[in-house]
């Protein structure tokens, strides 16, 4: 199952403190609302989903600086930081397995994982084989 939410822009409407600091999965889209990356915030993520999105987008425009240890964007592809415009997320304690599930679902629908998930740290995404089906509306 995909993340069943609308894309949200990373703009001044984002209340940064309300972005969950919890574990979970997120999807990033470009200007055309095409998903370009699926990531997750696991148990050792220093600031959860909030920190992961900060690493990609930076602080929302217009937000104040804040008394926290800003996580560094190490390991985030520069292309992702340049093209990222929209996000959606799901809080989930099973962040890693849900991440693999989202990647699997995406590949079933589009025959490949999102383009910026092609890197050495990508997980082994299983094929659904005889259970293959595409999401509605694809």
């Amino acid at each position, binding site marked *: 199952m995909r993340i069943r939410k609308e894309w949200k822009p990373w703009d001044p409407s984002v209340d940064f403190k309300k972005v969950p*600091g*919890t*574990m*979970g999965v997120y999807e990033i889209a470009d200007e055309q609302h095409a998903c370009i990356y699926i990531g997750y915030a696991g148990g050792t993520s220093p600031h*959860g989903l909030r920190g992961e999105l900060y690493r990609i987008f930076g602080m929302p425009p217009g937000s104040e600086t804040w*008394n*926290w*240890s800003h996580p560094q964007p190490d390991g985030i592809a520069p292309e992702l930081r340049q093209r990222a415009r929209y996000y959606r997320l799901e809080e989930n*304690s099973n962040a890693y397995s849900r991440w693999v599930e989202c990647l699997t679902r995406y590949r079933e629908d589009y025959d490949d994982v999102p383009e910026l998930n092609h890197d050495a740290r990508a997980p082994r995404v299983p094929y659904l084989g005889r259970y293959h089906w595409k999401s509605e509306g694809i």
Partner: protein
Amino acid sequence: MDMARSEEQQMIIDTVRKFIREEVRPLEADIDPDGSEVSPEDTERLRQMVKDMGMWQMSVPEQYGGPGIDLVTRTMVAEELTQHKAGLYAPAFGAFGEAPPAHLYDATDEQKEKYLYPAIREEKRHFFGLSEPSGGSDPARAIRTRAVRDGDSWVINGGKLWNSGADTADFGIIYVRTDPTKGRQGITAFIVDTDTPGFKVNRLIQVMRVYHTTELSFTDMRVPHSAILGEEGGGFALANDYLARNRIPYAAECLGIAQYAHELAVEWSKQRVTFGEPLASRQSIQWMLVDNEIDLRTSRWIALDAAAKAERGEPFRFESSMAKLLCTEAASRVIDRSMQIYGGLGMSKDMPFERWYREIRIRRIGEGTSEIQRVVMARDLLNVRSGS
């Protein structure tokens, strides 16, 4: 002792129960498996309904604009509020409002203006900072964060651990050692703004439910002398009182999800047929359900007894510890049995049991472990028996 509900209490319980079943539970179909929030529109709609019911911020005294509902009734309500999937840690999705820390009612007028009234209006959020990396169960010895007087201000260095909500709070009440020679009398409570230079959220610590606590550091954090809450050196007594009072609703909340789990298990056992008979016809299942009922009824009485003693102004530390211990452990057993009765479905995310199973486990550690509750009770018990 008459533990029957008054007519007014029964009316409140019925109202809250209907609200949870008809307004809150249906919203859970659309939230994340571990989500704790509904849409802003639904949140506002629920809050307005609660305000219309006259139950907004139940614990806020009437003189501060709240309904001032007594602790016994609030304990009964706490069990009702948590009877939904996200209920244990997001009762009614926050529709009943967040109350300020009770100690602020005894704060100075200046502190009330700056923290209490904005907290009641929900303009400012707070956190409670007691535990440190050196420990949390023995604050008299474990607190190493140090405040040193410098003219009319104090300079604080150190850090805190396991502070819920500190990353989004506007202020916190932190317990700091101001006199290293005085043991528990050397601990003082300070109210600190989270934008004070030197205050830093180092990281969020993920736990077994979808939530995080925080690790904080204070580096040369300067606060005015007027930031002291209560008396200098009186922080330990404040923290103890806070913890003892908090244990009662904390305990009752656990019973809510356990009661809901039990009701689901009873229904399922009547519906589910195996080997040609419903589960409810099996003695092994009947015993599990009866054990659930015994756990729920006995722990509910203990929680209400603790609340009644606190309300009457009698010593209640022993009773609040016993309630916390019994309710958290009984609720854990009830959820475990109910999940077992559901079989495979019980461990799927289609049902709430797996979430409750993880969340209720935390309750045997949070707000003082089961073992610490026994230590607290043993101290009281032995003091009494030794005639001291």
